[in-house]
């Protein structure tokens, strides 16, 4: 029997009436990569926060290395060799890498000695684990992949033997994620224990030795990764069979709703982000735009929805042009039947400090349905929000709750409900299921297909290739700002992957 690095016995934790963790038992074997999956709100992060001393369990016991441990603060956890890489990085953006690494673990009251010690220690860690990063770089100037590496270095610098990573790949590009996995494997080879919290089943299958599944605060199963399947895990997570690929009939494409012609967009530095892009979007079809993040999809979306200035080209909505100066009135576009679900729901799609019902009409608040004379009709707005909550299964079903208190998946449903329920002719969706859990993904996909079947035109941009293939009637692949190919939904992943990497284009040029 391999030795347990961590044992959790009978852990309970409630926040008010919500029981975030119920009687959790878990054993994590030393020197393995242990995955914990579950939907958003299943209690994974709470459990790990208890382990890291961020919260106190209401009852239960934690054993580290076989010994009962009392973990009251992160300091206790650090002393026991537990390190955590948080989902939102706990870094000071305008500090250097070195300063961030020593923060809280300074060896001396004066910085000079602490920094010198950390510098040589970082060199050692770099050699040992291939964790290369410039120790004097300023955090905000580093790409997210490197910022995450700094978080890992922080934990290792504090002598972590057990490393907890909370949704580590949510912000990474596929290449960065691959690099992270190589690092994690190396850590494992050096005898470290890694706990990986995620809701992406593909990652679990690719890297973990053991996987535990949580649902609604309870630990429902632990499996050896080799002996389980994605389908089984998805079912355990959601509690019912999940369709990972939605069923849909043939598209019946109608007339052109949105015509994009020779669209070119440059960013503030003058770099061309969208390069001479043309395509048509017809009623009753879903067009998916695939591509590795950062190949101009975001800029394309923003230009079409009138938010970003386009240098040249035209976009016609129902035969009439959209103002591409970047000063278009979003209200006018909504009136013309263009709904936009932005990629970044936190910054563009929602006001997190507002109540759910306020966000569920945001942008449509001038609609006479929500007005009583010059004033907002609060009752009408709340009833409308309640209807949407029921229809879209938004949880918790409380339209007075602050939007920030909803999980990512439910926040996305709030935005989708708002835009879809306005019955737009054209729906533009950026990253429809980013940070959304499996059960909700299925739901969102079904809704999008239902929109299509009602004869709406839907444009989906996603970096998740599975999603694009599952939803789209036509797939456009973007690379370096250009559309490098159009394929049908039957195109293989490999074929699309090559297009996304720009391979075919280069061959054609030769």
């Amino acid at each position, binding site marked *: 029997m391999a030795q347990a690095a961590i044992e959790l016995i009978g852990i309970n934790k409630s926040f008010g009436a919500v029981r975030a963790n119920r009687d959790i038992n878990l054993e994590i074997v030393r020197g393995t990569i242990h995955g914990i999956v579950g939907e958003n709100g299943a209690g994974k992060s709470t459990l790990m926060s208890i382990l890291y001393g*961020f919260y106190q369990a209401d009852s239960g016991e934690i054993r580290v290395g076989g010994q009962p441990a009392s973990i009251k*603060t*992160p300091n206790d956890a650090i002393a026991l060799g537990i390190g955590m890489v948080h989902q939102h990085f*706990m870094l*000071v953006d*305008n*500090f250097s890498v070195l*300063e961030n690494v020593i923060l809280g673990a*300074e060896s*001396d009251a004066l910085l000079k000695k602490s920094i010198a010690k950390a510098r040589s220690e970082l060199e050692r860690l770099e050699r040992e684990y291939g964790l290369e990063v410039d120790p004097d770089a300023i955090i905000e100037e580093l790409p997210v992949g490197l910022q995450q590496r700094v978080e890992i270095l922080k934990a290792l610098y504090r002598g972590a033997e057990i490393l907890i990573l909370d949704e580590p790949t949510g912000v990474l590009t596929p290449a960065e994620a691959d690099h992270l996995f190589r690092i994690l494997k190396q850590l494992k080879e050096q005898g470290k224990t890694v706990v990986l919290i995620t809701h992406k089943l593909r990652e679990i299958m690719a890297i973990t030795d053991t996987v535990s599944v949580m649902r609604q605060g309870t630990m429902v199963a632990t499996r050896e990764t080799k002996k389980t399947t994605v389908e089984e895990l998805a079912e355990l997570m959601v509690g019912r069979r999940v369709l990972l690929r939605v069923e849909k009939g043939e598209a019946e494409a109608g007339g052109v709703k949105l015509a994009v012609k020779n669209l070119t967009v440059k960013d503030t530095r003058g770099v061309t982000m969208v390069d001479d892009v043309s395509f048509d979007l017809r009623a009753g079809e879903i067009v998916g735009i695939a591509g590795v993040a950062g190949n101009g999809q975001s800029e394309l979306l923003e230009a079409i929805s009138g938010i970003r200035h386009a240098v040249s080209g035209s976009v016609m909505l129902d035969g009439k042009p959209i103002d591409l100066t970047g000063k278009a009135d979003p209200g006018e576009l909504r009136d013309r039947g263009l709904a936009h679900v932005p990629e970044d729901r936190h910054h563009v799609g929602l006001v997190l400090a507002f109540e759910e019902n306020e966000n569920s009409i945001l942008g449509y608040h001038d609609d006479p349905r929500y007005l009583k004379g010059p004033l907002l009709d609060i009752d009408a707005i709340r009833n409308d929000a309640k209807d949407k909550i029921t229809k879209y299964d938004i949880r918790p079903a409380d339209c007075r709750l602050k939007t920030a208190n909803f999980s990512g998946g439910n926040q996305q449903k709030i935005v989708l409900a708002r835009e879809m329920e306005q019955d737009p002719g054209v729906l533009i969706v950026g990253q429809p299921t980013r940070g959304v859990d499996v059960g909700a993904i299925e739901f969102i996909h079904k809704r999008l297909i239902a929109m299509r079947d009602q004869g709406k035109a839907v444009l989906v941009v996603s970096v998740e290739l599975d999603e694009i293939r599952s939803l789209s009637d036509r797939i456009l692949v973007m690379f370096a700002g250009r559309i490098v190919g159009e394929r049908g939904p039957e195109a293989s992943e490999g074929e699309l992957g090559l297009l996304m990497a720009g391979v075919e284009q280069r061959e054609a040029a030769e």
Partner: protein
Amino acid sequence: MDIFIAIVQILDSTIRLSVPLLLACLAGLYSERAGVFDIGLEGKMLVGAFAGAAAASVFHSAFLGLGMAILISVAFALIHGFASITHRGNQIVSGVAINFIAAGSTIMLGQHWFQQGGRTPALAPGERFEAITWPGVDAVRGVPIIGPIYSELISGHSILVYIAFLMVPFTWWVLFRTRFGLRLRAVGENPAAVDTAGISVAWLRYRALICTGILTGVAGAYLSMVQNGGFVKDMTAGKGYIALAALIFAKWKPVNAMFACLLFGFLDALSIRLQGTPLPLIGKVPVQFMQALPYVLTVILLAGFIGKAIPPRAGGVPYVKER
């Protein structure tokens, strides 16, 4: 030569007028760098001025006065901390409340204790901080240029003036060369990073506020025990707000803060000097205009000439552990 003497005199009064601004500005720097906005610098200076002068006149000791000024000012800083750190109240509201309490309580207690219309008794020589004459002043006084600079500008100030200017490199050293400074700057940028590193956010911010209280106490003592021979009601006259303006102008950096405060002090000195003096081309300018000049320039500088001032990112936001 007259013009040279006049310049030296203006610079000399620039230093004297800058000192309370500089102390208050550095005080604000500690708390704002730790993520706690402090609009209550004005009030803390005022209670410091009152407590200092009152204690000095009662106990006949300048140093006891200074000690009391610091003690009371720190106490007010802790009230601000209790409201805005422990109870996560609005930092601006708490700061404004402190200003009101300070303005009212100093007059009330002053009248109750001393019956002089809210003033404290005029301080006798031993109860004030006297000017320190540096060695060799008399010997070099006659030397052109160096003489007046040494004897007027460098020598002849009270101990508090030298302390204020020494606080500039000291504050820089604390912020950028010590563990405490690193943590203090971190908590003003991202308190969650500090919390997860196992450091108490609240205790760190309290310590920053204690630094603030000490410095506003010294600033207050300077006003009532150096610049003036006793406490007069509302004697801070908006210096706490000017110090805040200087802090933004200085982009929350200690050395910049010194230059910003010297600039505001210079404008003040100039406006006093030029009162009633006809200016070339313009002629005689009303006193009120000259008095308004520093404030007008403050607005202009803050509005357009400082470039982008990025405040500490967690400034003004009480820290709540994320769920």
